[in-house]
């Protein structure tokens, strides 16, 4: 990693010196592996996230191609086709299954991944910026950011939108089967209660440590990003011993199968996923979606440009292109999540898109949604998640 190595001076016996120098050279050899994740080393290599030899976007001519690394089937095909038809660059789409995969890939490649646009979830952006994985956006080339609602700009992970712009956002709630749970549920406390009663053994939760522990914190009015040990211990106690034995599955996408097939009675779900599930259910009236109080999550997938992107002009042009109201609406219709566009609700209603109450939320509802964060408590949350899985599987 470090190109010029200062000589190491060590006072030692001759025999020991040999062993020490062997050890040192071994460590140097091993250091390539450290590139795969050690922040300090990496930050030293590419400070500020600007790879010096990578082309910068200045508004010049568009390159012939564009490589987008995103979630699978996450963009309307007609938008992609139209971009190529109107502006020229052919699009190469690649898919990842998790943010961690995306990050590992970018870290290991050290700016030579070949990807132009990446679509990380908000909470991972600070980490990616600090590791120098993203290029600052040239906002002059993205004038269409004016079509993005201010509510979805300047979020905690990138307050000035220097690196990222909202691609789609969602929230976490739950869906229940009204034939099994006949009372009305409205809060996270109701969810936790129903899971222990009517829906015991027929409850699924999201397969994510943040959302699992989040339920407890939201229900009890605690900041879900808490690093307070007493709070985390209380969450663990409740989730592992009280909640987990009632959980029958950790399923992040119940809308894709569990809701249409009615395999669970109570399911924690993301709004877009729940919407598709209910829409496609043979008996939609059976299901009730709840955006639970008092607090819940807001998550956001964002357009960003990878450090060392080979086609920065095309990347900026594409981001600018998808932000236009027409394209934003096409994207919203295709994936079923709010794209953050201004006045898009009216346009969506006019276009006859169904079940918009699971896509658009009132300002009051929006005010109850909290951003997550990757912090020191992440390891503890993962431990709780693993313990809950062990308890639920026993």
């Amino acid at each position: 990693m470090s190109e010029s190595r200062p000589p190491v001076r060590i006072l030692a016996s001759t025999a020991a010196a040999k062993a020490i120098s062997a050890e040192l050279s071994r460590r140097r050899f091993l250091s390539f592996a450290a590139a795969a994740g050690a922040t300090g080393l990496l930050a030293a290599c590419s400070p500020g996230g600007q790879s010096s030899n990578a082309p910068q976007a200045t508004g010049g001519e568009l390159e012939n191609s564009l490589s987008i690394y995103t979630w699978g089937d996450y963009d309307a095909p007609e938008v992609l086709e139209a971009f190529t038809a109107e502006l020229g660059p052919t699009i190469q789409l690649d898919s990842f299954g998790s943010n961690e995969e995306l990050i590992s890939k970018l870290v290991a490649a050290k700016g030579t991944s070949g990807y132009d646009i990446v679509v990380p979830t908000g909470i991972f952006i600070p980490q990616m910026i600090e590791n120098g994985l993203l290029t600052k956006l040239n906002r002059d080339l993205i004038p269409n950011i004016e079509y993005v609602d201010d509510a979805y700009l300047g979020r905690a992970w990138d307050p000035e939108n220097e690196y990222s712009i909202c691609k789609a956002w969602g929230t976490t709630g739950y869906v229940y089967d009204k034939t099994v749970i006949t009372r009305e549920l409205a809060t996270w406390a109701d969810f936790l209660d129903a899971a222990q009663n009517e829906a015991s053994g027929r409850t699924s939760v999201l397969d994510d440590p943040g959302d699992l522990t989040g339920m407890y914190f939201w229900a009890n009015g605690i900041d879900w990003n808490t690093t307070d040990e007493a709070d985390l211990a209380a969450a663990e106690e409740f989730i592992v011993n009280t909640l987990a034995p009632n959980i029958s599955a950790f399923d992040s996408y119940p809308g894709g199968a569990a809701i249409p097939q009615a395999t669970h009675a109570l399911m924690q779900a993301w709004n877009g996923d729940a919407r598709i599930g209910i829409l496609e259910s043979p008996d939609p009236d059976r299901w009730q979606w709840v955006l639970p109080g008092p607090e819940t999550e807001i998550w956001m997938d964002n357009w960003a440009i990878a450090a060392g992107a080979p086609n920065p002009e095309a990347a900026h042009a594409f981001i600018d292109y998808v932000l236009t109201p027409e394209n934003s609406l096409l994207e919203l219709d295709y994936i079923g999540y709010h794209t953050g566009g201004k006045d898009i609700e009216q346009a969506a209603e006019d276009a006859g898109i169904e079940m918009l109450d699971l896509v658009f939320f009132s300002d009051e509802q929006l005010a109850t949604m909290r951003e997550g964060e990757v912090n020191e408590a992440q390891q503890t949350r993962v431990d709780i998640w693993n313990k809950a899985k062990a308890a639920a599987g026993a």
Partner: protein
Amino acid sequence: MRGIRLPRFALALPAWAWLVVFFVAPVAMVVYFSFGYKPGIFGTHATDVLSFDRYGEALSPTFFQTFTNTLWVGLAGTALCLLIGLPAAYWMAVKVPPSRRGLLLALVMVPFWTNFLVRTIGWQVILAPEGWLSSLLQGIGLTDGPLDILYTRTAVLIGVVYNYLPLMILPLFVAFDRVGGPLREASKDLGAGRWRTFTRVTLPLARPGVIAGVLLVFIPLMGDYITATVLGGARGNMVGQLVASQFQTAQNWALGSAMAVMLILVIMATVAVGGLIVWLATMPFRLRNRLVLGDEPASAPAGRSGDDGPAAGGAEPVRTEQGVSA
């Protein structure tokens, strides 16, 4: 192979080199991480201070609790694969006309050329409370209510058996196939019944295939954490999930690799203990077979049916006779 001065392992050298370069070297690096630690929130591993601390953390009660569940799934899944796969492989290798065997072998694999998640969804559609099987069973009056099988231990086993069956059937097929017809005929001519021929001649000769099949199912299954959960939900929680969660969600490669090393050691130990138990339990049978078949059963010649080529054909009858009557 006489006359050429090559080391005995010459033919294994390419595979050995391949695995050293693309498995041993990189994985050794990850194992090295297990002595390090996770530096801060945004780093995955650092190795400037080395210790065994991560191993202490890896050996948590959660690890062993999860491992117990994993072992149950691994043993039950392997046993079921063997029970279901053995007759099927025997049928393919012995009862089906030779000209159709290649096609049959391919047919066993074809379902698995459909993506894993997609075939899982196929099963979910079948097993769902309002799915095909449920309506069928209710229709013919076998059950009253909707089928409640998804996310149970039964579902765990259906998912595991379905996805691992080919890894059992193929080695078994190959092993049964080498016990040719003449050997079984000879056994019958000598007065052994159908069952006796199977247990005393065919099965002992197919033993390497049985061992290969059991290992090929059990070992990867113990490290697998997806197959069991897709139909079994929380009941299919496997210890591999712990390892993956450290590498992925916690981004703690140090702890992840310590857990992986522990997992590898525990699985190897399980295999060793299992092997010992099986070896001891089958001792009486092997001693008996030794009397019948002469040499170590495995060293009895494969009964090739004699139409392979001049060399094979010429050598065959003599040793078939030896094998059975000696």
